[in-house]
């Protein structure tokens, strides 16, 4: 049972796509200024990831090797357009705030990465679990970063006031840097550092000479 659910639980922490593989960080910094947009983006990415992994795994035995990447991208792109249309139809305001980032799920390395690394060589069931695990792993990191950025940048969570800001007569002076893209890089870096200090096995071996010399000194 544990082994069967390994694809689902592994990507949550031990092999998280964002903090261990450092994939998908472009959208992680673009949509994390508010919890609402981060949650919508997480749901959209997870849905696309699960659907595309399921379809690719279903037809994996009949995908010619020379054109496999282009077939995978065609399937993923179609899913992304459908997800974007659904968002525009049922959550128009949020889809306007996410602007191009939903369409950019096509280029998110996690989606193609899971298709190529897992769905192409595993049956449908495990592929769906793996996609779900990676989607939730990505979402968890996005939500942590969005929590910090929205709370410190606006003093709100999901748009509801937590720290009343000075502008509204409260006491909290918003930390404007949190609303700029570099803050997401720094938070992500701190998060990766914290996770790797806790789980030392995630630290990558030094690969370049400078790394080795620094490691020795």
């Amino acid at each position, binding site marked *: 049972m544990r082994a069967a659910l390994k694809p689902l639980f592994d990507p949550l922490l031990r092999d998280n796509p964002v903090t261990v593989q450092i994939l998908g960080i472009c959208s992680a910094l673009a949509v994390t200024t508010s919890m609402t947009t981060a949650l919508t983006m997480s749901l959209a990415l997870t849905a696309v990831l699960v659907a595309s992994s399921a379809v690719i795994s279903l037809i994996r035995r009949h995908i*010619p090797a020379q054109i496999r990447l282009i077939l995978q991208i065609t399937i993923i792109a179609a899913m992304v357009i459908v997800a974007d*249309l659904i968002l525009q*139809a049922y959550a128009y305001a949020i889809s306007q705030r996410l602007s191009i980032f939903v369409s950019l799920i096509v280029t998110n390395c996690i989606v193609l990465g899971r298709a190529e690394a897992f769905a192409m060589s595993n049956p449908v069931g495990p592929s769906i679990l793996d996609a779900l695990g990676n989607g939730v792993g990505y979402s968890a990191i996005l939500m942590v970063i969005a929590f910090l950025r929205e709370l410190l940048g606006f003093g709100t969570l999901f748009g509801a006031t937590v720290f009343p800001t000075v502008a509204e007569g409260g006491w909290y002076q918003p930390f404007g840097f949190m609303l700029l893209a570099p803050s997401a890089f720094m938070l992500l870096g701190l998060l990766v550092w914290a996770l790797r200090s806790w789980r030392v096995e995630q630290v990558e071996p030094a690969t370049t000479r400078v790394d080795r010399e620094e490691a020795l000194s």
Partner: protein
Amino acid sequence: MPDLNPISLWQRLLAAPNDSRGKTLTMAFLVSFAAALAVSSAAVLLGPRLDANREAERRARLEALIAETPGLAEVLPGSGIDSLEVLTVDLRDLSLADAVDPTQMTELTPDDDIAGIGTRHDLQQIFMARDGRDLALVILPVYGQGYQSTIRGYLALGPDLNTVIGLTITEQGETPGLGATIQTPGWLAQWPGTQLMDEAGEIRVAVVRGGGSTAYEVDAITGATRSSNGVQNMIRFWVGPLGFGPVLDALRSGDLP
């Protein structure tokens, strides 16, 4: 006699080696076909909802244009855009129509088509407000080609039909952070007070770099020259002879109600 039974053909396809030329082509075709089918069905099924959302967005922006323009809300007899008179004009002969018919279009020659729209819809809805009996405000719908998308908006003109009261962009897909600046309140705030034409009736309005020196000029967006030009050409076209120019003349002379 070749075997044309679809079931056995399908089984032969599944059994064929993956890298054979026939299977590669067939798989490429089938996957593209399924993807196209999924995307087009989603677009058709969700179409009415998408249109309704865009319509609501346009309405909200028109209301925002009225709310943000100083002195405009007081001029209107009622509140919001419901108090505006709606006039559907046929641009070919300035006759009035009952409803907008998007199938009636006029092809534009490349020389005339400064807004890059190819064809012009002949029936257009314009909005007007009156102060007593005098015209207080005319709102014209405008659209034109930007850098990578069609820009749509509303242009509000004052009683002289030459001074811009406000411009709002309702739809655009320009580069976020660059061209998309045309939709920001800060950039649009330059428009009120801009003059369209000089005394001779020549269209002078322009979006220029480092501009804003004359009453006809608005400052362009750095790094988004083509989006800025798109807005300029869109306005020049729609207040020009092939756009609402004749309608504005008729309103000035009183030929239109």
